[in-house]
């Protein structure tokens, strides 16, 4: 008889304990995110597609178009083109295509980059209607992010710009080559003169 009442009391208590659990959950904040309208912040180690780092000092990317990334990429999905613009020391990327639909997110491109120009993006909502949606032009993406951050946009060189830069570069090269040639000739002439001068006293000694 005592057991009977004990069972009822214990059972009733267990029911109340269960209800306490559910009501605690009822008042907890919601964890679900309304998908297209809300975004979650990704953890720092999240690997999205690679993208250009925006340099804190210059406010633009650091890519020198060395093509290391495109060479190390196991899927060979990176296309980099770069040109040296007049007045600049290094080449600069004029086009950077990343065909993300082949990407396995191995991260070799970000690791190999000599100027650490690449990082993983935090974008996780990738959905598109066609394959072409996933050919990322990094310069375009960079402009978008610069716009979002209120920075001045890095211009994307047009074909004409590149051609002009190439012509200018070629002219500069020619001029430089001419200059070096002239310098070399001058040096040669000088050397010859010197040799002559050295030769003359020797002859005098002979006499």
């Amino acid at each position: 008889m005592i057991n009977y009442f004990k069972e009822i009391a214990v059972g009733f208590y267990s029911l109340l304990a269960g209800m306490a659990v559910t009501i605690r959950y009822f008042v907890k904040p919601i964890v679900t995110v309304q998908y297209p309208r809300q975004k979650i912040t990704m953890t720092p180690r999240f690997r999205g597609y690679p993208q250009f780092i925006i340099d804190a000092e210059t406010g633009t990317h650091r890519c020198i178009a060395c093509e290391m990334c495109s060479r190390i990429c196991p899927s060979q999905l990176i296309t980099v083109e770069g040109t040296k613009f007049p007045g600049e020391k290094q080449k600069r990327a004029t086009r950077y295509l990343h065909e993300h639909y082949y990407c396995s997110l191995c991260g070799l491109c970000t690791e190999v980059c000599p100027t650490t120009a690449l990082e993983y993006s935090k974008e996780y909502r990738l959905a598109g209607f066609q394959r072409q949606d996933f050919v990322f032009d990094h310069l375009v993406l960079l402009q978008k992010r610069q716009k979002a951050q209120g920075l001045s946009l890095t211009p994307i060189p047009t074909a004409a710009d590149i051609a002009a830069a190439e012509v200018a570069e070629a002219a500069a090269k020619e001029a430089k080559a001419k200059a070096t040639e002239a310098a070399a000739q001058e040096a040669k002439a000088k050397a010859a003169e010197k040799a002559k001068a050295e030769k003359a006293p020797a002859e005098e000694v002979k006499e």
Partner: protein
Amino acid sequence: MELLAHFLGSEGARMIVGLVGVIALVSVNALFLIWMERKVAAHMQLRPGPMEVGPHGAIQTVADALKLMGKELITPDEVDKPIFWLAPIVIFLPVLLSLLVVPFSQTWIIRDMNVGIVLILAFSTLAVLAILMAGWASNNKYAVLGAIRSVAQNIAYEIPLLITVMSIILMVGSFKLSDIVAAQGTCWYILLQPMAFIIYITCATAETNRAPFDLPEAESELVAGFHTEYSGMRFALFFLAEYTNMFIVSAIATVLFLGGWHGPILPGVIWFLLKVYALIFLMMWFRWTFPRVRFDQLITFAWKILIPLAFANLLITALVLKLR
């Protein structure tokens, strides 16, 4: 409503206005309760629930209802057609009638019968008949199993339910719902009869076929139980009846234990509805806490625990009343 009755000046007009009001209440209540159920369920699982249609998904159920109305009424070939057609009506009418005697406030009673509580209890039992009709006529094994379970469940919970109600009626000495509420002006009966309240809520959960006593429509076992073969508005009628039933059992609990329309400041109707929806929330809370009981567990629980306790409660009540 009183004003209208005064203008029209006849009992018939009062009945018509009352019925229209009741039908409006039934539909609005069902729409609201389905939304509330989904919200409560969602929040207990850390989800937001319906959010897209209207602010916080408020008119989601309206959209659902419109969809249900647009659906085809399928009558399978092998069903017992007259009974199959009748079952949704039979389940819907009693819940409509039960609302006629519910005292929403001192004046908001459509028909203050002197056998109010008996009428509600009698009509609520008709629901089981409708479930049996639906299950049997569907000619579907799941439906029949659901119907059989419903009948067996009915035997289990109706007895303690009636006994607990009896103990309240002993205290008041009247079957009239308004009398029962009026008697609780100073002290709600939940304080005097806590045991009866717990037993009543348990039985009410079983009566409305809700978890943990949702054996007749156990989704995970019986597809949809007794209404497996129903579609469109016929299915909607079962749904409507179920949610209205929740309202009715909670309204009776409010009348019997929570002092009906009594409460400070706010008007009686608001107090009444507040209490009713709080009780409905309690039942939803049960649903998302307790797993479904097995068939034999329900019978054991009802016969070995609820009925003896209810009897003991009744005896003690009678003794106290006699000795006082």
